[in-house]
Each structure stands twice: as C-alpha cells, then as structure tokens.
C-alpha cells in the first residue's frame, strides 16, 4: 500500500496511536504488524506471553488492543475494561453497535478489539478495517492449510487401503481403486470413509 496516499486520506494524526497486539504465534503476530506498518501505524507492540496480561497492559498503556476472538486470554482483558481507573479504561469495540456491519465483519474474521479511553470512531475505523482484512486473510490461509493437510492425510489413507486390496485380491492399483469407488457409491459414502473403515477393520483383525 502507498503510505503517502494513505496519509492524505486520513491525515497524519490517524497514525499517532499505540496499538497492542496479543498474539502468541510469532508468525501471525508478524503478519498483523506488517499489515499495520503498511497502513502507517508504526507504534505497535506485541504481547505473546499472556501471564500477567492486565499488569503488562497497564504498563504499556495502549490506545487500542487487538486480540484473536479465539484467544483464551480475552477474559483477562475484560477485567481491564471494567477497571475503576478511568484513565486506563478500555472499552470493547462491541459496546458501540452503531456500526453493526463492521462488528459482524470483525467477529466473522475472528478479531476482537478493545478501545482505550476516548478515541474517536473515525480514528479507530481504519485500523480495524486493516486488521479485519489481515485476519480474514490469515483465517483463509489457515483453512487452506488445514484443507491441504487433510487432503494429504486422506490420500495416504486411500493409498494404504488400495495396497491392502491389491495384496488381498491380487489386483492392480486401478482395479483396487475402482473397487473402493464402487463400494463407496453403492453405500452412498465417500471413498475416504470406505478406505478408513477398511483400515480400521484390518487393524482390529490383525
């Protein structure tokens, strides 16, 4: 992203904001920082270790806290948000439901944000938009990675089942696969499920 055009859009004051990112995974943390840096927010701190979170946040005194919706330490942030000390009082972004669409987008992307103090909504919005976009990209990559892993594992299972049929019936690889497919179709199941059932049964019998 062209930083100078970005500055023209929002004015330099937008970037003057301390952002804390709570993310134990270093790769994900780097991804988020990169996205924020590209957007022109340079004052970004990552908290990876979650012990004593409230204490560390009080010391950092950030304007905005970004955290994965699935992070179990979210509840620790809740305490900070109800602290009687008004000076360091983060407010969950969800308190403001005026922008429902953005709230839903954040939740769908798996992001939650806590806004500290009296930041204007127009200053927060671009940060959140940037973070939401990056979270969406990361969750998409995570899903694709998982899908790829699953596909690989499935292929191994099918290969093992094929090998077993080839040995047991003395047929070729093509014939073994055709048999798996035929069985799956006649039972209205997936090839992988039939292969898995075959391996389970064989494990039980040997």
């Amino acid at each position: 992203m062209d930083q100078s055009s970005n500055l023209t859009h929002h004015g330099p004051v937008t970037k003057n904001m301390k952002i804390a990112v709570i993310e134990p995974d270093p790769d994900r943390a780097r991804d988020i920082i990169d996205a924020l840096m590209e957007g022109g927010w340079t004052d970004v701190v990552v908290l990876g270790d979650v012990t004593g979170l409230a204490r560390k946040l009080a010391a950092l005194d950030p304007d905005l806290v970004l955290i994965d919706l699935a992070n179990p330490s979210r509840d620790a942030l809740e305490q900070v948000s109800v602290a009687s000390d008004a000076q360091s009082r983060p407010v969950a972004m969800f308190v403001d439901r005026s922008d429902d669409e953005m709230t839903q987008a954040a939740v769908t992307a798996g992001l939650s944000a806590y806004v500290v103090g009296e930041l204007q909504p127009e200053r927060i919005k671009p940060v959140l938009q940037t973070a939401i976009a990056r979270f969406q990209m990361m969750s998409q990559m995570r899903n694709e990675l998982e899908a790829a892993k699953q596909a690989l594992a499935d292929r191994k299972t099918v290969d093992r089942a094929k090998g077993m049929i080839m040995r047991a019936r003395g047929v070729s690889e093509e014939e073994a696969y055709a048999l798996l497919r035929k069985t799956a179709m006649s039972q209205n199941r997936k090839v992988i499920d039939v292969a898995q059932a075959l391996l389970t049964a064989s494990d039980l019998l040997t």
Partner: protein
Amino acid sequence: MTVARLNLGYVPLVDSAPLIVAQELNFAADEGLSLNLLRQPSWAALRDLLALGHLDAAHMLAPMPTAMSLGLSGPAARIDALMVLSVNGTVIGVSNAMAAVMRNHGWPGGFGTPYDTVGPLLKALDGPLRVGVPFPYSMHRLLFEYWIAHTGQAQAADIRIITTPPPLMADAVAMGEIDVFCVGEPWGSVAVADDVGELVMPGAAIWAHAPEKVLAARHDWIEENTAAVGALMRAVARAAAWLDTPKNRPLAIEILARSAHLDLPHAALDHALMGRFATQFDAAPVDVPGFLRFHDRAANFPWRSQAAWIGAEIARLAGIDRDTAIAAAQRTMRPDCYRQHLGPIGVDMPGASAKIEGALTYPMAVASTRGEMILGPDAFFDGETFDFTLSE
C-alpha cells in the same frame, strides 16, 4: 419429526454437563432438537457471539445476562436467563505461599468457615490481595467480594481482582500472579494436584444456594422461537434431573469424559460430580455433599430474587444505581417461560417466583403445584436475608 438445529455455546467446565447430556442421551432428540454444541475459548467470546446472533443460546455465568443487559459487559444486548443450569460448584483456594503464612496466623487448613478463614487470609497480606476469578461478572467474584465485605474487613483489604481463564488458573498461582483463586471445577482441584495451591472453602460456604450458570438467550430470539425454547428447556430439564439422580453420576462421569465436548480426564470430573475433595496435595479427600446441584431443590427455577441479589451486588461493585440494576436484573429472569414450558411436563412449580434470599438455614417444604417441593438451605454465611419484594 422435523429436527431443529440449535447453535449452543458453552465453556468446557463440569457444569456445562446438562447441555452435553441433553444431546448425548437424546433428551434433545426426543424433543426434535439437534444441539450443535460449540465450545468457546472464553466467556467474552461466548458473550459476543450470543449477542450478535451467532449462537442461539448458551451456558452462561449467572451474572452475565444482567451485566449485558445493563451494558456493562460487551455489546449492550437484552439477554434473558430461561432457567438455572447449576447451583454452587465452585471452590476458593490460596497459593501454597499464602497457605503457609495463613497457618502462622492460626489457620488450621482444610475447608473452614468464612469467619475462621478471613482473619488469617487478610493477616497473611503483604501488599494487595490478588484474587483470580474467571470473569469480572461471575458468581465467583460476587461471592468473594460479598464474603470480604460482610466480615467487616473490607477496609483492611486492598483487593485486586485479576480475571484469569480457568484452565490458566493453576499456572497463574504457580507463577505468583495471584494469591487467591475462585474457580469452578475441575480447575481448583488441578491447582491442588499440581501442588501449587490449597482449597480453603467451597463457594457454597458463603451462599448455600448460589445460582452458578444459567441457560441464556437473546430476549428477541426467545419471543420469536417459542417452540424451540420450549423443546430446549424440556430437554435440558430432563438432562438436569437425570444428572441429579445419584446412581447416574458414575455414568455421567463416563459420558462426559468420553465425549469430545469437555476434553477432561476422568479424574478431573470426579471431584465435582462425586463431591469429594482433597484440599491439599496428598491429603485425604473429604466429602462435600451437594457440592454441585443440577436439578434438586428447585435448582433450575429462575428466581427473580436471585437475579435481584445479583443486580444489587453488581450495582455496588460497578458503582451504578441500585434500583436500576435490580430492576434490570429481575427482567432477565424468565420464570414465566419456566412455568409455561415445564409445567405441562409435570415439573413441580413453586407458588411464587421470588423468595426471601438467605431465609432458609435448613431444607424446608414449601407450597408448590405438586406439593413435593423442598427448598434450601439458601442461607448466607453471615445470616443476612434479602427481601426484594419492595423493589419489584
């Protein structure tokens, strides 16, 4: 029968059992429901997903609907409690370091009374007392704060509430981040098994009948889905009754340990469901009868007076108007839904929907539709009673 699929949020604690049992033992299927049980990593995540409509209903800390309805926690949303899912079931413990100093101040160890424990606890202080609770708006915190305030020692105590996710509670004790922990099982017993802390009291020592978790849903969703609400409440009530039948508890442990929903070992479930606790590493376990109630003593009935107590305590802690908080809290409880949906299947109904909280020091038969209802004890440790009928 057409099957409706409901998205139900829960946090993996022993007291989410009624929802798991409703699904696993087909109480839900009998009502034409399929429960999509969605495990949540934190109360905040569960809260936001419920408020934003990603969940239909949820296992929730009893004070949360009130805090949400008052706009104190997350997105302001009108959330109601259809029924109470469990009563009591929490423990209070201290770090090993605290326990050692408390012994020097005359604490005998083991489960004690709130009066006997508070002195050594506060004398052991060297600086602020750091108290780990699972959530700012939890019964754990309300009970702890009530305890300290009502022993007349609040002035002497500099209490720092530190919200700590239950699975991380034992770690926080081990790392010296907290001195006291108030937590649901199995996480108190985990701190003992890890030899980092000792248990000092069950939460019930402070209030004998404290609503711990509720079945919560958005007010609008309840109004628009009467049939699903009824089916869900009946399934959960039957699961709760099944769970509170003593002979079913060993099987319940088996089902919960095997189900993918909790991911907790057998031993971790044992303490809460059988009511047997070692308060200290390697100590012989002691019995705590009725440690965790799912159904008996009208445990599922959503008393408006219970909500009123929660509202009053939240008002005190959050510094907001007491009458406003009490009124909002009472609106969250839905005894009307409870009567409408569970009356026809023969669940015993109390004559009134509010009672004087804390009035019963022993079990007592009360007027009810079937004439079988026994309530109590529901006393507070200091003998205080709360009559909110004047503020209704």
